[in-house]
């Protein structure tokens, strides 16, 4: 039996090596090294490739799938009306999976060494943006995320000129949230619970700091995203708390929290979610539920078309549509003379200017010097009969 197993494994190992070598020789002549990857000329041809980094599988697939759907929705719309076609090269980052950001980096490496890829949409998480920086920047690629909201990733200067995003940062969301809580609701005692993920803690920290600056009494706690048993945590929330702020990413968790609040006799406390919880599951909890969400032009006929072709609304993925739009536009402009380099595409992304009328977001899309959108307002929604209605 030993020899069978040994032989099988040796064969498998050889197969892996051989296939790797074989698979790699195909692309190796085109992109020789990172040093000139940025300036390597690529013939644009009829079909241009856009890399797509998203959590296609894994724990956060519920966030990643909408992004893939929206990006694909853009590409198929574009291809219908243009002679030059775009193609998405998806790489799975498995956000939140057991191997952490390692998969995202591998995916970024794969995109970086794929000579035809000129720009990238994604990745989803702010920590993934950080982790893939080396690989993408090294390969000279510009990348545009539709959901990485951590304030620092544009401001710290590490990826200026390379990284852009089509979603407003935490600083903007926290400002809207704080403004609504202190200005409109006029609350004095707030409890914040983060879910221990990068997205959540960043937003929670900012909201907490701003609320405290305005004299609100803030309690703070965290709970692992993997956890569903909130009762011991709920017991701890002071009785006089007026609102619990949940900057979470998983709507079912928000729902579970709300239900457990009820079963613990705390039905009267207001709940406020973040863009990650903007979902019917969360709004169905009742009239004391609020949420913040990036502006989306609900009147846009593309939203309706998406709704029609996909069963759900999956609005969380909409900025990835815009991200794909940005990258595709940049490649188009860079390709005017038939060839383009990744550096040219980056420069064109920076110059992006999508008019409010053409933008899905209902506002003009252009980037400031850090890579953030120039306009970045956030909307506040209130659940009325189980549906979110914009109130601010």
């Amino acid at each position, binding site marked *: *039996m*030993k*020899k*069978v*197993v*040994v*032989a*099988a*494994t*040796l*064969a*498998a*190992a050889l*197969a*892996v*090596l051989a*296939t*790797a*070598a074989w*698979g*790699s*020789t195909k692309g*190796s002549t085109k*992109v*020789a*090294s*990172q*040093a000139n*990857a940025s300036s390597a000329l690529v013939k644009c041809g009829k079909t241009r490739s856009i890399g797509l980094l998203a959590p296609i*599988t*894994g724990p956060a697939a519920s966030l990643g799938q909408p992004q893939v759907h929206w990006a694909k929705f853009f590409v198929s719309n574009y291809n219908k009306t243009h002679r030059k076609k775009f193609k998405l090269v998806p*790489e*799975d980052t498995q956000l939140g*999976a*057991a*191997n*952490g*950001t*390692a*998969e995202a*980096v*591998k995916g970024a*490496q*794969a995109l970086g060494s794929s000579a035809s890829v000129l720009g990238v949409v994604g990745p989803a998480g*702010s*920590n993934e943006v*950080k*982790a893939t920086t*080396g690989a993408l920047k090294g390969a000279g690629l510009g990348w545009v995320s539709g959901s990485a909201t*951590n304030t620092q990733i544009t401001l*710290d200067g*590490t990826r200026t000129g390379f990284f852009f995003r089509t979603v407003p940062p935490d600083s903007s969301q926290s400002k809207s949230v704080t403004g609504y809580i202190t200005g409109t609701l006029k609350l004095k005692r707030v409890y914040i619970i983060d879910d*221990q*993920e*990068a997205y*959540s*803690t*960043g937003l929670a*920290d900012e909201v907490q700091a701003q609320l405290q600056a305005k004299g609100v009494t803030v309690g*703070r706690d965290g709970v692992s995203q993997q956890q569903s048993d909130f009762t011991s945590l709920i017991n701890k929330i002071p009785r006089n708390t007026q609102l619990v702020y949940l900057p979470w990413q998983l709507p079912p968790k928000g729902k579970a929290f709300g239900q457990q609040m009820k079963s613990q006799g705390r039905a009267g406390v207001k709940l406020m979610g973040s863009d990650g919880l903007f979902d019917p599951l969360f709004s169905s909890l009742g009239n004391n539920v609020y949420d913040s969400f990036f502006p989306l032009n609900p009147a846009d006929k593309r939203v309706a078309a998406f709704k029609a072709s996909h069963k759900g609304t999956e609005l969380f993925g909409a900025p990835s549509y815009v991200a794909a739009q940005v990258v595709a536009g940049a490649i188009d402009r860079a390709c005017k003379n038939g060839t383009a380099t990744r550096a040219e595409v980056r420069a064109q992304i920076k110059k992006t200017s999508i008019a409010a009328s053409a933008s899905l977001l209902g506002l003009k899309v252009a980037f400031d010097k850090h890579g953030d959108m120039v306009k970045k307002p956030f909307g506040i929604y209130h659940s009325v009969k189980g549906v979110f209605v914009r109130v601010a």
Partner: protein
Amino acid sequence: MSSLGGGQPGEGGLPAAAPEPVDAPDRVKVGVDEWVAEAEGRRAARSGLTGALVRVWERLPAPARLAILIGPFAIFPFITNEGNLYRYGLITIIYALLALGLNVVVGFAGLLDLGYVAFFGVGAYLYGIMASGHSGHHLQAEIAIPIVVISTALFGLLLGLTSWRLLGDYLAIVTLFFLQAFVIFVNNANGGLNDFSYPFVGKVDLTGGSNGLDQIDPLNFFGYHITTTKGYYFFTLISITLLMTMLYFVNGSRTGRAWRALREDPLAAEVMSVPVNRLKLLAFMFGAATAGFSGTIYGAVQSGAFPGDYDVGLLITIYAIVILGGLGSIGGVVIGALVVNGAPELLRSSSNARFLFYGVLLLALFIAMRPWYKPVVVLLGTIAFGFAVHGIASAVWSRGTAGHIEGGGQLGRALEHWVLLPRNTSSIAGWAYFALIVAALVLTLLRGWWRALALIPTLYLASFVWENKLVEQVSGATRLILLGGLLVVIMNVRPSGIFGTSRVEIA
């Protein structure tokens, strides 16, 4: 699972006239002197190409074996591009390096340390704290690496102390909690509101919390920066070659012997003049230092450290490498790392994955079944069975053949005429998956031609499940399913791992 079903231990594998293979652990005739006398004969009995290869391998001097293992890796960078070098080459060697350290703790000394990858994380974070834009310090690597290695060794010493009192599974659970503690700690130690306030310095942003610690410097030796993947690749390759050589010497020395004695029987070792507690600590320190060193490289390569990277997922990967390579086998980790890291990378693209899947299935079939005509019969039978099923289905159940294989190439197009591809697959494929597991398990109970016969529908079922379900998530769930199944099968066929020497244990 299905690909493994074909590789189940059968009565095949040896010509009918050959004696029973007696080296399978369950058949060792313990304590029979004739066993010794037969040893030469058994060695000669290994026939065919594999037998010859094994014989040659066993007779090679150690440097030659090392050269054969490392040689292909040294050539690899010259035939591939940066992205593939990173994914197939660099990550494989970093994992192998990491697994070498675990091999000392678990393979040599027999201490079940489930907190091991925490040291990998400690290495990456420590280096990040000493040299990154995040912390503002930029220490040279020639200073930082010794500091990392010594501090992780000390952490190893601390964790190792628990092994004085706890053994086996108890040690496993405490070390696993240690890993959890590490992950929770780095997830929160950002000087934020949940964070500890340290004595003297107060709240400090050590790890960047769940956002991770980014902008880690590239390794910088005396002003020379390693910036390219190739540079890191060779640095790691040289490190692992050196480490393997050193481990080889240690393994043959008094320390290595004492570790193995400790693994075999701690009490007897203690009574035979081995200071068991000290050696346990030494093993923990050695492992931790290796992990810390590889963590430093990983941190520099990733130019960041993120909490999720050092969690149970990596632990499972590294254990799989060590076990696949054979507990206690120094060279085995390289093969283990190649299979465990390489195979999933190949699975990333579904057309590669398809080739790999059917290739391994065929290979397993032909290696595991003898005489030669048996697998041929099974193969032909499966092909015929598939066309028959497809034919019947297209006549009576048109929905069942309505689906398409996306981007499958020639193989994919050919398969469309053979395998059923229902339009809405999710629930059918789910039940088929369930049926496949049952079928594969039943196969292990059958013998001879019955098994061959049962293989035909099972193989077809396997390709049905593959095309309709597994292929959707090749880089995610599928790869881990295969890994889990592989661990179970390997443990059942060869409890000491593929390249490990078979062992006996008498309780």
